[in-house]
């Protein structure tokens, strides 16, 4: 059974005012346990609105969201349980830190869950370990840390609830290349070692292609694609049409194809690109 499922999910902002705007329109998706799903689309495509429904922050205008088959808005109590099972980490989460120490900030979620002191400690230490925070950092003020460290503390604050589904909105925004890699690896590592479902929201394929098993492409509040990474790339024309970036490497193959060469366009890693180009050069006898 799907861990998360939406049925005809729609949401309209400012209903009944001149500013009425349909943010998402009849979304039907289902996400299996343990999957790594990338959600891409540009600003205003509805991707942020969609994920805020998955943990019950927003209530659908129409349609339902199911967690393990049960409507998450069926009762107040269940919505609250789902808050902890579906961990949502917002964009630039470091701006939401508030406690006097890193430890206490990470403990905020577990505390709200009503865990005992001992359980809270276990959760915090485990989460801190996942994001690579050293023990001595736990007693520091989060405001004395560097930008990248703050980001990791904030993500640990969500992981500490040990959610079955971890959703991150643009987790690498504003970071340098190394910071981006560290965070991506950390998230993938979390999924593999806990078996949790992970959903990463992003603006571009480049960020999600590496780790995601499936990609949900949103456009103007609707689902454009919801399929495997390769299948999405093989529809690159549509991606370009709706204004999404394709990775630089994929771009090369798109260009070659448009020049009449018979190459695959579902390529996004250096290793695969190398293989395909070597094949092309061999075929054309350009490789001795």
């Amino acid at each position, binding site marked *: 059974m799907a861990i998360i499922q939406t049925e005809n999910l729609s949401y309209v902002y400012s209903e009944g005012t*001149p500013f009425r705007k349909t943010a998402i329109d009849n979304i039907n998706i289902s996400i299996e346990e343990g999957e790594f799903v990338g959600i891409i689309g540009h600003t205003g495509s509805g991707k942020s609105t969609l994920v805020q429904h998955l943990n019950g922050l927003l209530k659908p205008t129409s349609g339902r969201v199911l967690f393990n088959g049960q409507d998450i808005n069926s009762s107040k109590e269940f919505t609250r349980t789902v808050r902890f099972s579906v961990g949502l980490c917002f964009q630039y989460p470091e701006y939401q830190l508030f406690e006097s120490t890193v430890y206490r900030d990470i403990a905020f979620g577990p505390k709200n869950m009503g865990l005992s002191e001992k359980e809270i400690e276990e959760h915090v230490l485990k989460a801190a370990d996942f994001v690579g925070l050293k023990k001595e950092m736990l007693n520091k003020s989060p405001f004395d840390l560097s930008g990248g460290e703050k980001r990791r503390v904030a993500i640990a604050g969500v992981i500490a609830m040990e959610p079955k589904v971890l959703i991150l909105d643009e987790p690498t925004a504003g970071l340098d290349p190394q910071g981006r890699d560290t965070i991506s690896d950390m998230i993938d590592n979390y999924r593999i070692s806990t078996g949790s479902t992970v959903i990463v929201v992003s603006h571009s394929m480049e960020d999600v292609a590496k780790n995601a098993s499936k990609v949900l492409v949103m456009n103007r509040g609707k689902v454009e694609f919801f399929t495997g990474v390769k299948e999405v790339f093989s529809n690159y024309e549509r991606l370009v049409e709706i204004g999404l970036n394709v990775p630089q490497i994929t771009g090369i193959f798109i260009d070659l194809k448009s020049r009449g060469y018979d190459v695959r366009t579902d390529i996004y890693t250096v290793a695969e690109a190398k293989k395909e180009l070597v094949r092309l050069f061999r075929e054309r006898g350009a490789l001795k």
Partner: protein
Amino acid sequence: MIKDITIGQFFPGNSIIHRLDPRMKLVLTFIYIIAIFLCKNFLAMGTMLLFLILTVLLSKISLKLIAKSIKPVFIIVLITSVLQIVYNNKGITLLELGRLHITTGGIFTAVFTTVRIVALVVASSLLTYTTSPTLLTDAIERLFSPLKIVKINVHSIAMMMTIALRFIPTLIDEVDKIMSAQKSRGADLESGNIIQRGKALVPVFVPLFINSFSRAYELAFAMECRCYKGGEGRTRLKEMKLAARDYIALFAILACCGVIILSNRLITAPEQYSNILDSFLRFVL
């Protein structure tokens, strides 16, 4: 919710009300608000309401927005009206329910209070709806510039207001975002008594304050980069010059004031109305 607040917002336009000199608009609003509290009879109140309706129509601001501006004070209006009706026992009793006496005097006062509050809110909303925040604070700066003599730095105060108005929407967005984020970590912001709710807001206000400080720092840098060094020697993009329309508007409001003063003297106040009605009802019954 929090995003529904419209007071302080500006809706650009090119109506005659938009084009009035902001200084004049400020003065007119001030006179209007005082006048509305001096109205003691239906003729005066009717004149002031008519004036307001006319202004709203001239401003071409949609009636929906006007309605929206009243929404936040709706509860206050409702409560005061009910209190007036329940506790004001002047005039004739229309209905008697046990201890509750509903009287004509109560109803008159309730109607007057309601109209006064609504007119006050609509008039001041109209001022901000039709005047850009910068022009508004500019106008305040110019109107109060004589205070320089008593060593009050009017420019700084006006600049602070400009910045405050500019950052209100930004901060509203930010509060919204932080609240969502903390709710996602299980923060319960909606239940409990006042103390519990206050405590629950700590995770919202601490980050808000910290972020605001860093915003303020960055803004200060950015302003320095643009050669800001106080009000001395600054010029302005927008000229303020009184035009014929400004004098007409001033004349109109003064005429309304004249109506109020005269009618207050000549026409009976509503308390006496109720006496008249009283004897009328007695006569009929």
